[in-house]
């Protein structure tokens, strides 16, 4: 059973909400986590195979060589913590995730390797944002002091840190709205169709199709048709 909301936690939440950059959000998380023996933190969502490894990375202080090793060996596909995350709504410790022994020895080695960087114990807070990807804030350290109060406090800190970091990221990369027609036209253009062909499919004249493409280019602030298609993909207006 968790207890009261301490004033130290409220102070940390206030500092997180006022943080001017994603980096500063991370610093506040580190400062708060020290109380519980946390030395490392990471907020991200596992990248899918078609995404850059740091596509969803918000803030972290993972040791660079561990991060590189993790990425270059594609550990995200086998990491027991990622697999546990994808089926968890609620926070869990690394120890809890490994109970039941459902992971292969070679996959468990990923967890063991992290010890070399001082990450012997971990606590993962799953976060389901609007985008649909399962994000998580992971806290790690040599020895974590995690009673129910600490877990509840870290859960709260993780949610506000994620929320603040996303706010800042959204402001930096504001979503570009497209009209339905612009998105339709770009979807067909992405399949290699000419303006005339798109026009035949959608029942528009090719000059109207051209105008929709030009309008979409202006919205994204790009010069070419290919760039507009790539931007539309990135913003989720069309499918690959």
């Amino acid at each position, binding site marked *: *059973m*968790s*207890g*009261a*909301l301490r004033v130290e*936690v*409220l102070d940390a*939440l206030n500092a997180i909400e006022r943080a001017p950059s994603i980096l500063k959000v991370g610093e506040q998380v580190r400062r708060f986590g020290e109380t519980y023996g946390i030395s490392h933190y990471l907020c991200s969502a596992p990248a899918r195979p078609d995404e850059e490894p740091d596509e969803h990375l918000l803030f972290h202080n993972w040791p660079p060589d561990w991060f590189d090793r993790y990425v270059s060996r594609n550990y995200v596909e086998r990491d027991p913590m990622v697999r546990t995350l994808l089926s968890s*709504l*609620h926070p869990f410790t690394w120890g809890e995730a490994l109970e039941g022994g459902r992971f292969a020895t070679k996959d468990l080695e990923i967890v063991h390797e992290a010890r070399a960087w001082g990450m012997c114990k971990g606590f993962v807070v*799953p*976060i*389901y*944002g*609007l985008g649909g990807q399962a*994000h998580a804030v992971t806290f790690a350290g040599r020895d974590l002091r995690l009673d129910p*109060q600490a877990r*509840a*406090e870290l*859960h*709260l800190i993780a*949610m*506000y840190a*994620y*929320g*603040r970091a*996303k*706010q800042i990221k*959204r402001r930096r990369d504001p979503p570009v*709205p497209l009209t*339905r027609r612009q998105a339709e036209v770009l979807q067909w253009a992405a399949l290699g169709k000419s303006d005339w062909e798109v026009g035949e499919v959608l029942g528009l004249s090719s000059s109207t199709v051209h105008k929709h493409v030009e309008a979409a280019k202006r919205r994204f602030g790009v010069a070419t048709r290919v760039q507009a298609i790539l931007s539309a993909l990135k913003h989720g207006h069309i499918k690959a």
Partner: protein
Amino acid sequence: MLHLVNRENRRRHLDLLESHYRVRHRVYVRERGWKALDRPDGREVDQFDNEDATYLIWARGKDVLGAARFVPTDKPHLMSDIFPHTATLAPVPRTPSVWEITRFFSVRDPAGEVSRNAVIGDILCAMFEMGLHHELEAISVVCDTFFLPRFLEQSIQAMPLGLPTPYAEGVCIACMLPVSHEQLSAARVARGVRSAVLFPVADLDPRLPSRVEVPAHAAE
């Protein structure tokens, strides 16, 4: 379209309320497994579904696609009666100027025309419009913790009243969402609309017809 159903007009909306109780049963009892709410008649109705409740119900024709229920906190409500232990920072709010939101959900549109985010976004915009009209200070909520980051990442401010607290079906948290033009504006940006979703804030009158056409952008 969004419907506002309250004490004044509920008699005209009994069918809509009924279908919304049935969708709630599907969402909370069958899908989320809240067994305590199960009733043999296939409706999900509790002690807070009374004359004090105001509902925002998103329906296309007869299909209820989402809803939320509001109760003034000077009346019996979820936080005061069932989850008072979730608020440790301050006493549970009990004032006509704070309304509690409960049973906030969306479901997949069987026709695939309206996205769940659109339904949720419309209800959030309408909630702040309604709050401003009634000069509320805040909307209070006891919700599953996984809802909270979605508010926060859209710049909708939520102040915790306590720590995340386990309950029978998960982990919940008590929060206050201040009612302000900034909050409405954040909800509108998140929804991608510039103007009123349900009614012009200053023009809301509970005696007016509650059926208002949702602008075309809502049907995406």
